[in-house]
């Protein structure tokens, strides 16, 4: 077992929002996470970085309840999470923009927005269709900045552009007023202006007092918004840096070293 004091939230943060301790996860023979400790403070933006296959997505899948860890504990606001499912992680206030966006492509925009958390008439389970449509279109036009004129909530998601699809995935995180927003490679394949929208969204989340986990291969993007960086390599946490202690070039250098040697210098 690792000493979990190694990973800590930024100074000034007293009680972390999320604490993951000694997380193990393997898929058949492949070990994706090998005893990872990870913490996110209140109103903290954490950059989670590392090579392809480092285990970043797996770590957040465990955190969000998509995958069950083989070993290890997860705490939310100091309390251990017992029965972890996506449903209860979303109810607690965790929203995730998954790497592959988690969209149902044949469904239309409003259904995608409310997937898994439909707006219903109380416990009857019947969906408020008209209201859902209205909310969806409002959200996309006002908050996400969808500009195309033909936009209707009944439009299928299949024909949308990559940026628009990402917009819907982000709109979900926005709508449900999450305390912790996780973005897994949200800027992949996006244009500069779309990328800036995503980065502004993270800054907005910070201003709103939310916390954020930002996963990306673009060190430049993550450096511009995160306060702390956690480096993952082959299923292990190999380092963590506060933004105030390291320059962009310094961070890039460290990452290159990790990629070569599997440990920090």
């Amino acid at each position, binding site marked *: 077992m690792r000493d979990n004091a190694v990973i800590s939230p930024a100074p000034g943060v007293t009680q972390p929002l999320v604490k993951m301790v000694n997380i193990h996860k393997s898929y058949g023979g492949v070990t994706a996470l090998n005893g990872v400790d990870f913490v996110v403070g209140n109103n903290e933006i954490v950059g989670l970085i590392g090579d392809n296959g480092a285990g970043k997505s797996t770590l957040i*899948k465990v955190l*969000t*309840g*998509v995958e069950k860890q083989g070993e290890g504990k997860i705490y939310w606001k100091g309390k251990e999470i017992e029965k972890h*499912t*996506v*449903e209860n*992680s*979303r109810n607690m206030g965790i929203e*995730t923009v*998954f790497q*592959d*966006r*988690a*969209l*149902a*492509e*044949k*469904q239309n925009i409003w*259904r995608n927005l*409310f*997937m*898994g*958390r*439909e707006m*219903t008439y109380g416990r009857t*389970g*019947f*969906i408020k*269709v008209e209201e859902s449509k209205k909310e969806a279109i409002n959200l996309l036009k006002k908050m996400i900045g969808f*500009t*195309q*004129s*033909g936009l*209707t909530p*009944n439009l*299928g998601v*299949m*024909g949308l552009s990559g940026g628009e699809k990402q917009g819907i995935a982000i709109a*979900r995180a926005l709508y449900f007023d999450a305390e912790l927003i996780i973005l897994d490679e949200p800027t992949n394949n996006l244009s500069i202006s779309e990328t800036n929208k995503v980065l502004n969204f993270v800054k907005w989340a910070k201003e709103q007092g939310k916390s954020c986990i930002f996963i990306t291969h673009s060190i430049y993007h993550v450096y511009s918004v995160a306060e702390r960086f956690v480096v993952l390599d082959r299923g292990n946490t190999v380092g963590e840096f506060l933004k105030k202690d390291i320059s962009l070039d310094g961070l890039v250098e460290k990452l290159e070293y990790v990629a070569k040697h599997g440990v920090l210098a």
Partner: protein
Amino acid sequence: MLEKIKLKIIESRLQLSILGVLIIVFVLFAIGNPRTFLSYRIYYAFMSTIPFAAILALSLTPVVILGEMDLSFPSVMGFCAWAFAAVFNQTSNIYTAFVVSLAVGLIAGFINSVLIVRVGIPSLVVTIGMMFLWRGLVMIASGGLGLSLVKTQGTILYKALVGRIGGEVPAQAVWAVAIAVLYGLILNRHRFGAHVLYSGDDAVSAKMMGVNVERVKTIVFMQVGVCAAFAGILVTLEVLYFWPSTGEGYLMKSLASVFIGGTTVFGGTGTIFGTFIGAIIMGSLEAGIVSSGISGFWTQFIFGLVIVLSLTIYAYMSKRLSLGRGLIRSIKSLFGRVEK
């Protein structure tokens, strides 16, 4: 306003085109034999026979939307019909027989779901096995003999299930319509229906968004069992006799109803309305062909023709429309950029 109507038409183009097929089929029937098709009698006959296949087809629709398959329902229907007849003959209590039969259907559906969801056997394969298994059980249990249900006549349940409302409308038709309305509401307006759509569309995404895909599948397969039992009860009550072959002949008809209704095997989309109309088409074709004076030898050929043609229309329609829409969209966005 006009825009809105246009949009509605585009949205429900699938439903409209299946309705179009139905209208064409009936106009052809009416031309072929106006005396028969302009009188109530033939529709009365349709209302007494079509509901069995229609109920089965309705219950199969969510299965197909999930991208799954169930081939065991005709045999489950047979076994549940046997259970109904046997319990009634033992206890003389139609209510007990009714409840037992539905419970057997539920259990049969549950067994399917366990094998598919927990054990992980593809539904197409496992339900082939179950098709033989339940039919085999019918044969073993009944000894190949039928059972009379004449004594159920006169009970309230009999009247409620297959009686003639006002002496004119077969009660089973009302049941079929009620189930169609309920299923349509659930699919389009209820959280559960939404979860069926998500799960069939992209199970991985659905899971990541907190949809309990396994639970959804389990419930969907269980309701097929219950509906198969219900259809089995209706059919045996209608003829007042349990035949060991009960359920045979419904496999292809019910599945075809789902597909000509516009629900595709790709999963993620489907329409209850389409299935209902599809069942009417499938159920009226044979009578229509024969009474139009066409030789009965043509029946299968025309069945096939209608199925293949309607599927071709849907495939063509969905391609062209999405292509056209994509084009319009890209032109619009092009102009949008130029304006700025």
